[in-house]
């Protein structure tokens, strides 16, 4: 895993030993391993969706509207988890839906990590008015409840999955900026930084090569936790109708379309939500394990 290689860079110890040590702590947490396995399954579903899914997510079977799951009365073995109101196979839609949730989460985290680390690192290293400006800006973003801010941003950008991704990323940036800045400020005073400065390292080298790697552990944990929240938020915006647009099989969007059938067809409501819950839970379990493995100080409290 890429996170493991990062730890080895931090420790400075031989890479294989660091990976072994990381895995030792990580695998001690049974929940984390279960989470990792489940996330692996979801990733496989997303990548190999056309191979796994029995049907296309948009294919409508006009003779099979709201067919219950196979184990219910009236269920059909053609549709394991039943069909929705326009006769689409729910299982296929869920499998394809994993693509949107995971991809959206990855893009959001990539956007927030790069901008958050960039701003936080510069603010923490340069200090002065730049730091004040950045931190006040982050305060402004934090003062508006995240979902509301995302909604307002999506209104400006126009509804759609991409707008939702950008909007959610903006609401996450302050957490990364604050975390990076705090880490950088405490690290910048360490002796090894002074040593490399004395040795003639330039500003950029000090920031990126000396300081940054030592700030990564909490950022990785925060990124994992934000990854799970971002899946929730993408689904929430989809549910509110401003995220992914129909007929995209995005999980939140599926729930929104299923709302009017909650009294008649429980399965159209239950499964998309369950997919969201289990994926988010699995990532959070993994995040707990990562925290234990990467940050021995705050372990198992």
């Amino acid at each position, binding site marked *: 895993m890429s996170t493991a290689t990062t730890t080895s860079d931090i420790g400075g110890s031989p890479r294989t030993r660091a990976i072994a040590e990381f895995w030792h702590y990580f695998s001690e947490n049974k*929940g984390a391993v279960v989470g990792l396995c489940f996330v692996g399954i979801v990733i496989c579903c997303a990548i190999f969706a056309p191979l796994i899914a029995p049907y296309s997510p948009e294919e409508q079977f006009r003779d099979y509207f709201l067919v219950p799951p196979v184990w219910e009365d009236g269920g059909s073995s053609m549709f394991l988890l039943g069909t929705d109101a326009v006769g689409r196979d729910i299982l296929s839609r869920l499998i394809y839906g994993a693509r949107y949730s995971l991809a959206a989460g990855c893009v959001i985290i990539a956007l927030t990590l790069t901008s958050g680390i960039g701003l936080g690192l510069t603010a923490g290293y340069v200090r002065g008015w730049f730091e004040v400006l950045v931190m*006040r*800006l982050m*305060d*402004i973003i*934090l*003062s*508006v*409840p*995240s*979902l*509301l801010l995302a*909604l*307002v941003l999506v*209104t*400006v950008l*126009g509804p759609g999955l991409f707008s939702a991704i950008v909007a959610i990323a903006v609401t996450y940036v302050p957490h990364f900026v604050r975390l990076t800045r705090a880490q950088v400020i405490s690290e910048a005073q360490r002796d090894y930084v002074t040593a490399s400065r004395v040795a003639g390292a330039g500003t950029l080298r000090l920031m990126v090569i000396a300081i940054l790697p030592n700030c990564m552990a909490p950022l990785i944990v925060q990124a994992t936790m934000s990854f*799970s929240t971002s899946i*929730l938020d993408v*689904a*929430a915006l989809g*549910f*509110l*109708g*401003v995220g992914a647009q129909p007929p995209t099989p995005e999980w*939140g969007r599926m*729930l929104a379309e299923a*709302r009017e059938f*909650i*009294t008649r067809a*429980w399965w159209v*409501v*239950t499964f*998309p*939500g369950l997919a*969201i*819950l289990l994926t*988010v*839970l699995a990532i*959070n*379990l993994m995040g*707990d394990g990562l925290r234990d493995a990467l940050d021995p100080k705050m372990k198992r*409290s």
Partner: protein
Amino acid sequence: MFRYTLNKVALTIPTLIGVTIVAFAFIRLLPGDPILLLAGERGVTEERYTQLAAQFGFDQPLWQQYLIFMGNLLQGDLGNSFVTKQPVLTEFLARFPATLELSIFAMLLALIVGLPAGVIAAVRRGTFFDHTLMTVSLTGYSMPIFWWGLLLIILFSSILGWTPVSGRISVMYFFDMPTGLMTIDALFSGDKGAFRSALSHLILPSIALGTIPMAVIARQTRSAILEVLGEDYIRTARAKGISAWRIVGLHALRNALITVVTVIGLQVGVLFAGAILTETIFAWPGIGKWMIDSIYRRDYQVVQGGLILIAGIVMIVNLIVDFLYGLINPRIRHTRG
């Protein structure tokens, strides 16, 4: 302490001004002509257009537009809704009690369940209860609350028929609402049926909205108490023969309170965000539903005003939390901040 509070207030002001700039920019950044957007769906005549442009100051340079906007804002004028023609502030005040009531109940629920659960889990660390609680709370934390709300409706309203599906109270009850909080007003009206109706409408939304804060509070309380239990003075107290529960009651809980107050403060923003989803699902006539409806209806004046008001409330609550934090934590009180 005075200095500490003053410092916090001073830090809030630039943030608040920043929020007004964001809200001001919002209408001007929307795709399309802001005047046509503000005029609503019906479109406007040439004459009305210039009149509107002058009214909102769109014919002036940007910085003057902002000054006009701020001038109005400081007089409590956030503009009028283009759908109802009502002042935004009036609409906000009419709906705020509904959200406040829901949030209070959700928070109470989260505290009543989360706090003791966290304490018990910390004291009985490593037991079955502890593991179960940690799993349940992580599940709660991972819960998509819009789905959770729908599940609650399916189970308690559709299948069991115990609770109503939506709204704040049955249409059959009428009484004066001096506080705007339905349960309290119903109680004072002396109509027991009304009170019961209000309460039964409140239960499911409160559970939906309170789930995430509950999970967070339980987890944070647990780790805060575990941390305190590891301190030397606790070991001394143990050595003197004081029982575990007594130690928790006397020492640990009080010190863990600092963490808990912070968590509660942080959850206020979360509650508002959650209120948007919860109120949408349960047709709860509060701020969250008002905002999302205004976005759907393109009533951007309302969105702009609501943004400022909500951010203002969140900031005030954070200030209060900071103040309480200073009160219970002497270390902060005595540092020159």
